[in-house]
């Protein structure tokens, strides 16, 4: 690898302690991202995508607990920071656009005041005029008018609110942006505009992006690499082209073949069976009850995520010729 990774997650584990028992929502996730790289994190609802994002932000709330792992962003292990330092790291090193972010704007505060708040929380010395100018410039960079600074959230459309959230996220030029389904409530045209905006500002500030979602179409259009999650575990990490043309893990294969395309009109191929409950995970590989190629070994031995020769990683007993 020519460049040092801007993000290195290793063996991250999150559990939720509920009355019904302990649910391991994220089990030993490891991945690395280079500056400017865009990763898509996909999986069914409940597979642990959002948990992973929240764990990286250290925003897991009880009964959830981060039990293990390191999240190194640009050389700093976020897990080793104090609460105080972590507050500073959010937005300036690692920024998060939560699901339905546009509903998180404060309805009784002007957009500008909410943006200025973000800067003031990190920089105590900046002058008021300087902060305002930076906010207005950032609004421009996400294709909004400078005058949006004076508006209230209810005066903006859904797509505009989503842009304001993106503007807040890039104000302090973070090294990593995590976007959790940033466009799921928007229609296709607005979705494309918002994704194009994220794409452009990401290039401008050179940040890496993790895009979380289950819209594979969006992934095909936007990301460089795709990480597939199943029942709290990463099962495959491949380049976007590899995932779409030659998925390796049987779950990834089922996911890709369930997609509607122009060519296969009228063919609906769902994935048989249901996602397992995290409280009662099947032994061995969590996917084996739904897998068409399950072997005896899959019921008992859990496959590890192994690097393959072509730069991909797969956790499946069918692919054991790992290089690691």
């Amino acid at each position: 690898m020519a460049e040092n990774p801007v993000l290195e997650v290793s063996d991250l584990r999150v559990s939720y302690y509920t009355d019904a028992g302990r649910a391991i929502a994220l089990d030993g996730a490891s991945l690395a991202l280079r500056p400017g790289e865009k990763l898509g994190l996909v999986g069914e609802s409940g597979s642990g995508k959002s948990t992973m994002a929240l764990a990286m932000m250290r925003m897991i709330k009880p009964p959830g607990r981060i039990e293990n792992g390191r999240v190194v962003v640009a050389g700093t292990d976020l897990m080793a920071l104090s609460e105080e330092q972590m507050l500073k790291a959010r937005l300036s090193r690692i920024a998060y656009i939560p699901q339905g972010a546009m509903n998180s704007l404060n309805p009784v505060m002007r957009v500008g005041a909410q943006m200025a708040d973000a800067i003031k929380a990190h920089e105590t010395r900046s002058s008021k005029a300087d902060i305002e100018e930076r906010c207005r410039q950032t609004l421009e960079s996400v294709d909004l008018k400078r005058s949006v600074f004076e508006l209230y959230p209810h005066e903006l459309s859904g797509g505009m609110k989503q842009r304001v959230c993106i503007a807040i996220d890039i104000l302090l030029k973070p090294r990593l942006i995590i976007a959790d389904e940033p466009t799921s409530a928007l229609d296709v045209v607005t979705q494309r505009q918002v994704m194009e905006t994220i794409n452009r500002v990401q290039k401008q500030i050179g940040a890496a992006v993790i895009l979380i979602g289950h819209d594979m179409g969006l992934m095909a259009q936007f990301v460089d690499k795709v990480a597939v999650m199943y029942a709290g575990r990463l099962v495959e990490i491949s380049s976007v082209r590899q995932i779409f043309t030659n998925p390796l893990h049987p779950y990834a294969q089922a996911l890709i073949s369930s997609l509607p395309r122009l060519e296969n009109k009228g063919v609906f191929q769902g994935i048989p069976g249901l996602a397992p409950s995290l409280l009662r995970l099947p032994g061995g590989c969590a996917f084996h009850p739904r897998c068409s190629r399950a072997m005896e070994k899959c019921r008992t031995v859990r496959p590890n995520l192994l690097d393959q020769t072509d730069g991909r990683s797969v956790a499946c007993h069918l692919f054991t010729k790992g290089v690691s």
Partner: protein
Amino acid sequence: MAALMELMGVTKVYSRGLVARTTTVALRDVSLTLNQEEPTIMTVAGESGSGKTTLAMLLLGFITPTNGTILYKGRDISRLSGDEKVTFRREVQAVFQDPFAVFNPFYTVDHLLSVPIRRFHLARTRNQARDRMVEALTAVGLHPDDVLGRFPHQLSGGQRQRINVARALVLKPRLLVADEPVSMVDASLRASILETLRGLQRDHGVSILYITHDLTTAYHISRSIIVLYRGSVMEAGDTDSVITTPEHPYTRLLIDSIPWPDVDRRWGETKIKAKEGEAGDNAPGCKFASRCPFAMDKCKVTPPFFRLAEHHAASCYLMEKHPTMDSAQLSDLLPT
């Protein structure tokens, strides 16, 4: 052919304010016919604010049109007698977007499915009612033992949405209005719900009005499509022609913006003009003109429909060389 549901020049205007009334035209002069004999799946597509949910509400009789009439089996739905109203309510059913919001968390699935059976006196005995529930659940691909007796929170989003379809199905409807039924459901479950809807049309003779902004699923499930923009029909026709050879600049923009799950099919290069203010909303003429890269002077007058092919029409002056047609005849060209 007798019409099942017929919209004749329907316009819906919402107004607000007491002194300075501001009005929003949610739907403008829409005519549409669904046949009784041939059940079909028709898509109504458009972005938010295009009037697609208003259309659903009108068809379900939840709101009344400002102008025009809606006929169900030849009777005006706003003037139905008591008995006719009961029949209408039973035969026209709906499935809504959010499978998490529509259930009462205190009731089990059994209760949810038995209410309509009791309400419409569809079964004489308890066993008959249960048979009917089992039949409906099987038709949507659920194992009755898996879901009966359960509470909504014990079910996945996909299961809930299929129960919604089953609830509509116990009533043996003639028309199902499905307002974004899969937009909140995981991609892997979408396929099975769409397959369920298609099975209803094929095997149970239910006509389906599929309301969506997702043209990918529309392409896969429906025979015909109507594209709405700010309350006006932009383009209509059979799904294949409209999606593979869109002609109206708005439809082209929509199709161009679909994120296809295919690394070799990139998002188009069509530059998108930002949405302009709501001020020009009630201005006459083509609603899309303010965002249209091909806008001309004459776009200030509402363009008529031009018939491009046997099953394809668009409302745009760029198609001027084709013969015009009356908007009331629009549904004649939709295949069934």
